[in-house]
């Protein structure tokens, strides 16, 4: 895409129907942490349309390799080896390049490396659970990790989170800031999860479920899952529409 086509209008308004509701009582923590007043809308300005820029020099050589970035020399994390890849685009189907993606997850047994974590499953001494990468010119990204395990959590009497990887994304503008979770195709826990259930639109949930991708699977090494992400986009201005028509 040439620079002349990059629009300079504001970000299109967020559509609440694509997102979870703030108050979803089956997810009990949301009850006392959800704002009750309607959020206030305003057209985006420079502060929402700009954002921090992170260059590739931020990244260390193992940042996108969770199998090894916390492991002792010569060791690697325990669990099913996977590649997660996909593209980040905006809502108008333009690739988002230079987007910082940060991920975090439980180990293969469903245990997080965190002092507030109390699950009896053991830590893996060679797995930290964090990684990051920056999208390429075409919006693509990938990282390697282990398939995280499902785990029980204190909500209802017997709630289990489906296996998931947390994603944090920075686009070009702070208005695009997004944190979400990726789920895995075929996991029966997805539709039982109250955190997933906070999203009312079934198709919005389905877009969080990454399918197995045999084309990118590396024989005798790692299976691949594809997770594409759509961020908000900037509208073209009327002025630019006219210019394009000339």
């Amino acid at each position, binding site marked *: 895409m040439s620079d002349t086509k990059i629009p300079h209008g504001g970000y299109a308004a*967020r*559509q609440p129907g*694509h*997102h*979870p509701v*703030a108050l979803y009582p089956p*997810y009990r*923590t*949301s*009850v*006392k*942490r*959800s*704002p*009750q*007043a309607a*959020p206030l809308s*305003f*057209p*985006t*300005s*420079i*502060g*929402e349309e*700009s*954002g*921090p820029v*992170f260059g590739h020099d931020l990244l*260390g050589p193992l940042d996108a390799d969770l199998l090894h970035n*916390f492991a002792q020399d010569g060791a690697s994390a325990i669990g099913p080896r996977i590649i997660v890849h996909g593209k980040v*685009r905006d*809502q*108008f*189907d333009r690739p988002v390049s230079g987007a910082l993606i*940060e991920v*975090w997850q439980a180990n293969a047994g469903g245990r*997080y*490396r965190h*002092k*507030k974590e109390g699950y009896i499953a053991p830590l893996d001494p060679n797995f*930290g*659970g*964090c990684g990051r990468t920056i999208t390429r010119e075409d919006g693509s990204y990938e990282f390697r990790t282990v398939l995280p395990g499902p785990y029980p959590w204190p909500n209802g009497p017997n709630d289990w989170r489906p296996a998931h990887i*947390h994603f*944090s994304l920075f686009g070009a503008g*702070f208005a695009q*800031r*997004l*944190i*979400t*979770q990726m789920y895995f195709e075929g996991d029966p826990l997805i539709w039982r999860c109250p*955190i*997933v259930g*906070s*999203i009312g639109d079934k198709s*919005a949930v389905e877009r*969080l479920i990454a399918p197995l991708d045999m084309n990118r699977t590396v024989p005798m090494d790692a299976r691949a899952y594809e997770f594409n992400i*759509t961020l*908000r986009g900037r509208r*073209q201005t009327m002025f630019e529409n006219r210019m394009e028509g000339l």
Partner: protein
Amino acid sequence: MRDLPETASQTAGPYVHIGCTPNFAGITGVYDEDLGARMITGDVSGERITLTGQIFDGTGTPLRDAMVEAWQADAGGLYAGQDGADPHFTGFGRCACDQDSGAFTFETVKPGATSWPQGGMQAPHITLWIVARGINLGLHTRVYFPGDPALEADPVLGRIEHRVRVQTLIAEAEKDGAYRFNIHLQGPDETVFFDV
């Protein structure tokens, strides 16, 4: 032009620190430094300030597991990346709330006024973005500064229908260069959050 649905948000959960501030979480040796740990990187222009606060739930209990990000203009009113912006200021801060008190703190500079697309200026402000367990979509709010004559004409504050709520966006001056901004997720003092 195609209009694709934005990917749905999900809560950052209780372990957001693992991915966003791993050094804070005790996961060391992966990244040299947590992202957004320093907003000032050199001989910065303008007035240095400390912004601190807590985030309270509907029972009045501070959140101890939240993460807050700050994004702001430099002292001249320019954002990092704009021509002429201060090279010693990133404009971006990230803070994991203290695991006992729930306090967040940013060492920064007082921002300058910024432009508004429909003309005029916005009063100096810092955007905050709050994520935590129980928050399903990250919350945007703004910190303004007390006693600033520019508050009167600020186009965003001017949109707040219930004028009594304007006060929820104005920091409290504690002493020279130290400001407190408490955030209330619910209740009579509920902070104004933005759908930007």
